[in-house]
């Protein structure tokens, strides 16, 4: 592994040296011009990759942000005589701001709806530039932009501008890597893998994507400023849909979601038409054919290791957990016993200890901020934690849930049962914010959450799991848990980009807490495997750890034992009881496995045709005639 890292560093260093030295060796200005063009294309491709590769968002309007940057810089230069050092940041901020403003309403859109909205944004930019004669001079464009002036030095030649482009590329690569290699990047990739799963653990999907899009737009805006000052002339052609499509091809041909793929793609697809110049008019015909050929030969991209299908590696910027050499804590169990519910904690630590190597126990038991400590109880401990009143939901004329009221007290395990189609999943979806109720209200921990979106509900401490496991398949087990844990760190964009001290401390805290959680659930051995490759039972366990990493006060579990045999579901029941004891959290459990229900639930609520038909202690409810008729079968 370390050889691999060293080899990559050596390769990177060699590439940088070559990129810097090449124009000094080759003196042909035509080549310099080409290199400057490649550098600009690479900057744009790297920025698009953040959104497309890591974010999974088909951003069909990326060239629009490039255009906003170019026009901003050109107008500031022409109207106010502002130098490049002022116009460039202004261009970046302008493009990022537009991205920020337009992104908020459309970032919750999925797939092609998002692509369409971005295409529309890009088209509007082009149309405005083309038609707003008074400002942009329409089709005639804006000539006479000053060359890039850095006060002490002005870039005049193609080579000078190439170096500026190269510097910009370095900046773009660093910014993208920092973003992607941070908890925010984990959130971005998690949302790409499964946006509902991401929201269910509190990841602000739209916020994270907005940040990524704004960062990408800002970088594109910078590139636009450099373009305007370098070419000294701006008109709409370079910012049209065709440019976005070309960038798309660069990123995909190079390798989506790889650090260097977009650069490789930019080099190849910028130089290819130049190399084909001898073909004159057939040049673009051959270019199109070669593009198809490259995709056919390497569908995952030149540098892609498997693309989106087989998952994607997020650069690990923080050191992996040390395997050896950590001094053993002299009193692991004592450290544990200092948690609020000491006795049961020690007991479960003992359970966990039986599963992991002694060294690991010592490692995770040192007094670090713990992942799994229960949150402080709220002021009114006897008030219900969750209160649902008169909840009703209609789907296209079909009443799925009708006037359901229920309560869950802190620390209580409540079972929600009923026949298929009774509305159990809808109730879970309504409480967790995935659906909006037609009427009725929901309170959690004293606050109304009736219309809160899923990620806010999760951050408030009400976390759900899904009947069909929704792990993030292209993240490792560890990253799955970290993606959920990082939400509570509340890291700012600034902290992430500057790697501030607070950021580094937060990373340390996260690493320790996640180590502990993985060890507790016996997942240490598989922590670096992709979550999707695990056995079913382990995936269920990861899902639980991930949910617990958000420090919930109420877990909504939707058929966690589905597809388990009786021995496996008995193990699950044990695990749920342990979690409840140790974390003092409440659980609302939807389940068909009666053995699980009877073993862990203190109270049952039975739904049929969207209404509550019975509620009470399990042994009473299972004898209720209505329940027997509608759900259990048999006779009293």
């Amino acid at each position, binding site marked *: 592994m370390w050889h691999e890292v060293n080899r990559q560093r050596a390769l990177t260093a060699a590439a940088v040296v070559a990129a810097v030295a090449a124009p000094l060796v080759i003196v042909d200005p035509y080549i310099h011009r080409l290199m400057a063009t490649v550098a600009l294309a690479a900057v744009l491709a790297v920025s698009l990759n953040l959104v497309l590769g890591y974010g999974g968002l088909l951003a069909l309007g990326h060239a629009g942000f490039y255009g906003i940057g170019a026009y901003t810089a050109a107008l500031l230069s022409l109207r106010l005589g502002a130098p490049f050092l002022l116009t460039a940041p202004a261009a970046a901020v302008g493009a990022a701001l537009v991205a920020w403003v337009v992104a908020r309403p459309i970032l919750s859109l999925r797939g092609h709806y998002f692509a369409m909205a971005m295409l529309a944004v890009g088209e509007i930019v082009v149309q405005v530039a083309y038609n707003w004669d008074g400002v942009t001079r329409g089709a005639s464009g804006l000539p006479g932009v000053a060359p890039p002036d850095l006060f002490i030095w002005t870039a005049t030649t193609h080579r000078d501008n190439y170096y500026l482009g190269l510097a910009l590329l370095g900046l773009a690569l660093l910014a993208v890597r920092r973003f992607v290699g941070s908890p925010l990047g984990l959130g971005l990739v998690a949302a790409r893998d499964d946006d509902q799963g991401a929201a269910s653990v509190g990841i602000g999907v739209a916020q994270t994507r907005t940040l990524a899009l704004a960062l990408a737009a800002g970088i594109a805006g910078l590139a636009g400023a450099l373009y305007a000052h370098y070419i000294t002339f701006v008109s709409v052609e370079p910012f049209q849909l065709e440019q976005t499509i070309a960038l798309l091809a660069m990123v995909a041909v190079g390798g989506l979601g790889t650090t260097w793929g977009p650069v490789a793609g930019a080099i190849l697809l910028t130089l290819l038409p130049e190399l084909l110049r001898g073909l004159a008019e057939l040049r673009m015909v051959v270019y199109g054919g070669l593009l198809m050929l490259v995709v056919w030969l390497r569908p995952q991209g030149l540098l892609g290791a498997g693309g989106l299908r087989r998952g994607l590696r997020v650069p690990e910027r923080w050191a992996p957990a040390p395997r050896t050499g950590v001094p053993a804590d002299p009193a692991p169990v004592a450290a544990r016993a200092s948690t609020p519910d000491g006795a049961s904690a020690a007991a479960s630590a003992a359970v966990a200890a039986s599963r992991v190597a002694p060294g690991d126990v010592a490692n995770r038991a040192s007094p670090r901020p713990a992942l799994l400590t229960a949150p402080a109880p709220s002021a009114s401990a006897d008030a219900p934690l969750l209160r649902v009143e008169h909840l009703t939901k209609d789907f296209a004329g079909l009443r799925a849930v009708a006037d359901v009221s229920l309560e869950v007290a802190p620390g209580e395990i409540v079972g929600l049962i009923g026949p298929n189609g009774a509305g159990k999943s809808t109730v879970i979806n309504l409480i967790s914010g995935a659906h909006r109720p037609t009427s009725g209200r929901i309170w959690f921990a004293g606050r109304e959450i009736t219309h809160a979106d899923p990620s806010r509900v999760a951050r408030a401490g009400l976390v759900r799991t899904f009947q069909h496991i929704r792990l993030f398949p292209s993240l490792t087990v560890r990253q799955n848990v970290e993606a959920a844990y990082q939400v509570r760190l509340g890291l700012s964009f600034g902290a992430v980009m500057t790697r501030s001290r607070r950021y580094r401390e937060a990373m340390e805290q996260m690493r320790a807490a996640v180590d502990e959680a993985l060890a507790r659930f016996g997942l240490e051995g598989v922590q670096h495997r992709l979550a999707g490759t695990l*056995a079913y*039972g*382990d995936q269920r366990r990861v899902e639980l750890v991930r949910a617990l990493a958000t420090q919930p006060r109420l877990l909504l579990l939707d058929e966690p034992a589905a597809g388990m*045999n009786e021995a*496996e579901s*008995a193990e699950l029941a044990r695990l749920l009881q342990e979690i409840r004891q140790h974390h003092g959290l409440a659980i609302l459990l939807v389940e*068909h496995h009666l053995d699980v229900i009877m073993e862990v639930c203190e109270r049952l609520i039975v739904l049929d045709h969207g209404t509550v038909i019975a509620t009470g202690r399990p042994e009473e409810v299972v004898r209720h005639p209505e329940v027997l008729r509608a759900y259990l*079968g048999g006779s009293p």
Partner: protein
Amino acid sequence: MSQAAPLLAVIDLTITYGGIRAVEQVSLTLQEGELVALIGANGAGKSSTLRAVAGLVPIAAGDVRLAGESLRGVPAHQIPRRGLVLVPEGRRVFGELSVLDNLYLGGYTRTPEEREAGLERVFALFPRLKERARQAAGTLSGGEQQMLAIGRALMANPRVLLLDEPSLGLAPVVVEQVFDLLRRLHAAGVSMLLVEQNARMALAVADRAYVLQTGRIVMAGPAAELAASDAVRARYLGAGRMPVPPGGAATGPDDSA
């Protein structure tokens, strides 16, 4: 029991995913009119076995023979034509299509006359489906969807019916109905190979059963005998308290790493 050649024979079946063996040298037989259950833990290879028989998963080694004819290498869409139909896990009805359209698709390999006859048979078996023939299948309850999935498979008038976890995610009262239906089909002479998590129910309806563990058959015999065996009771019927190891009993593709 009939001494004739088995209707369905799985012979030394091996299935690999990316080089990792999920199912290893599994052999089993199904006689005409028999109901055979295949039980085991999650990831033991039960579903993979069924999917390989139905042609959805390539067979790495071994063979599957239906009435003596090999199904190895036959594309999935040609297998129903030969008389073998799989009712997939999770029901998989076409939710946006009507119940009737779903049934017509079940009879895709049949002539129009056979389809109409099949439709009458299925409606006689499931009067509920007739009432809801024009409704979108997605609006049916889970139990009704399972009936539709089975009815859809019967439309092909198969010689062998494979059922993958028909009780999955169903309420207890509906699980009873599904197993009642299996009993009725069994009594009517339909040959079935059943994969089930609910080992207790499966062993109660089956003639014979096989137990799969990490891709291999570890036990086989008459269902009643297996249901009485201590090993099966402890491991699959939840009678004992078997600690499940942290890695889980199941194997994932990377377990060997």
